[in-house]
């Protein structure tokens, strides 16, 4: 379990993500939001299939999301356009959002 989780964090943590390093900026990953925090989507990092499925569910750059449940491991639940949607931990790292102010 822990090993598995470490694997996630190493591979998909923004610090180690080879796609586009984005530390020191106002961008965070969706999976970094804490319960109750709100943020707007900036972009996705993933294939067209992933982006298409997210967009159909209303995840579009500029859309505001609210983190409903994030225990730091396992899947998360976000509220998007009035509906709760569960996302895997990895999916939550593939969505970049602006850093919430609160």
């Amino acid at each position, binding site marked *: 379990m822990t090993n598995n989780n470490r694997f996630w964090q190493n591979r998909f943590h923004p610090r180690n993500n080879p796609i586009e390093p984005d530390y020191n900026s106002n961008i965070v990953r969706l999976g970094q939001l804490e319960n109750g925090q709100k943020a707007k989507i900036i972009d996705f990092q993933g294939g067209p299939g992933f982006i298409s499925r997210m967009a159909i569910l209303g995840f579009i750059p500029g859309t505001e999301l609210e983190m409903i449940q994030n225990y730091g491991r396992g899947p998360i639940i976000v509220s998007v356009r009035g509906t709760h949607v*569960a996302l*895997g931990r990895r999916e939550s790292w593939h969505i970049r959002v602006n850093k919430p102010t609160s």
Partner: protein
Amino acid sequence: MGKSTVFNMLTGLNQHVGNWPGKTIEQKTGVVNYKGYKIDLVDLPGTYSLTANSLEERIARNYLLKNRPDAVIIILNAATLEHSLYLLTELINLPIPIVVGLNMMDVAKQQGFQIEENVLSAALGDTPVIPIVASHNQGLNKLLDAAIEVSQHPNQTLSQKYRITPSDYPHQEIQKQITSKIQGKLPAIYPTDWIALKLLEGDSEITSMVKESAPETWKSIEMLLIDHEDTFLDIAGSRYAWIERLVRAAMTNPRKGTISLTDRLDKIATHPFAGLLLLIGISGAVFWLTYTLANPIVYWLGNSIISPLALWSKSALGNAPFWLQGLISDGIINGAGMVLTFLPILFFFFAAMGFLEDIGYLTRAAYVMDRFMHWMGLHGRSFMPLFLGFGCNVPSIMGTRIIEDRRARILTIMLSPLVPCTGRIAVITFLAPAFFGKSALIAVWGLVSLNLVILASLGILTNKFIYKGKRTAFIMEIPLYHVPNPRTIGLFIWNNLVEFTKRAGTIILLVAIVMWWLSNYPGGNIENSILAQFGHQLAPLGHCLGWQDWRITIALLTSFLAKENTISTLSVLYKIEESGNLAANIASSLTMPSRLGFLAIQMLFIPCVATVAAIRKEAGTKWMVINILLLLFISFSAGAIIYWGLTLLGVK
């Protein structure tokens, strides 16, 4: 959302469950007789869009385009209005009259917001919008009235509808260019501007279709598409922008930050630890309830109906020839009839599952199990079909269609026969008391756990060595909890029981008859029968596993046709007499290690023929063969290890 409830409410038992032609996805059709009209209803697969991301979406849109129904009823969920409106924005681009059913208006009121259907209707070009509460049968007649109305004036409704196409997305110009390029080059059933839109959305199915139908212009279209690769987000974005405007106009008192009942329940139900405990508790309760409620009925059916009926038929047919008497009493009534006594188990299990599904709990269970399913390279969605497998593996394999990714789907299909179905659990609970006495319950739990441990290990190994840790996206909407609808649950139970009874009436009956014949001919007794000779041929196999009695081997083999056959075959072969107890008779011919070994093999053996057929349909012949060989290997290894292990340890 609520679509199935509407369909069930309207059609009731006048529905037919089949498959979409050439597809494995369930197709429900039904007939409604209403005000002198005979309306054919087709329940299209539930989807979020009409883009070819999944098989359901392809089926839904191909049906709409090819069959051109007289009208489409789309059910919007008032509680999650924006999401359900997305499908509507796609539908209004198709030349088919639409009627909108606005469901869960009661929930909307509870949450303190209201939706003005007149505003929605006006914004949709006077498309009828009917508020309904599907679970209470409210507004469904009006829905039918509206559907009849629009189907009779298709041209009028269509021209109105087209006025409101949300086409203000920034790539309208390119869409026009593509439209002019493909004009007249594609099958007439496809509206050209719709094709252009789907090309811009990157729809794989439409792209390859255009490539084939218009090869000469494809190059120039492709150039345009490459230049506008990012169009998909724009199109989806403009649809949602349109939806937002619509919702802002039609919704009064939009929801505030109130904590709903769903949120409060989910504090526990989706909590990583509490949710897991709850899931374990609920599963335990389901099995406890199922077997506590069903077992007395099963015994009663067996002892007070089937056995007396067999005896009665024997005496009633006293003058009939030997073969007729034996066939009816031993073959049909005791063989196939005994299997029907399992129906109460299935009834209670499917009632519990139907209830959990209908209130929305199974989604939470999937969410909680996601972390554990990741060990096997699967995600939460695979949990739901696997859980259903405790009832019967066939709906479980059919149920894997909710997993979008083929790799994950195949793995779930390969693992699902390892979930012990009621058939197998019935066999071991039938034999365990005589086999193990007071430790029967421990043995049953041990055998069920063995299956689950093997399932998990196989999944983890596959993930590690074959799929090498590849994972698939887990994206799942979490619906609001809602009050269960007895009719939906009732139909879920009914459809599953009908399937089971059909099998008992066909394949199991056939096996019972063949078994009876093989075990009585030539000569009229078992000792000299064809079956006995075949059984003796297989004796060396049985010896390796510790059973000297060839009848056990035959019983195991017939479980390939249906797991419950083990019991019916044994009862035919051991010829239950009035005095003797079948399970006790069998127990006396086996030592303790071989009893456990036999039951372990029984639990892990090749799936029944119905399951094998389902695997072949869903995953193809290759995977079916692999699955059979794999389970053959696993079951015999496990049986041999248990038998020899216990024997070497000196267990008697």
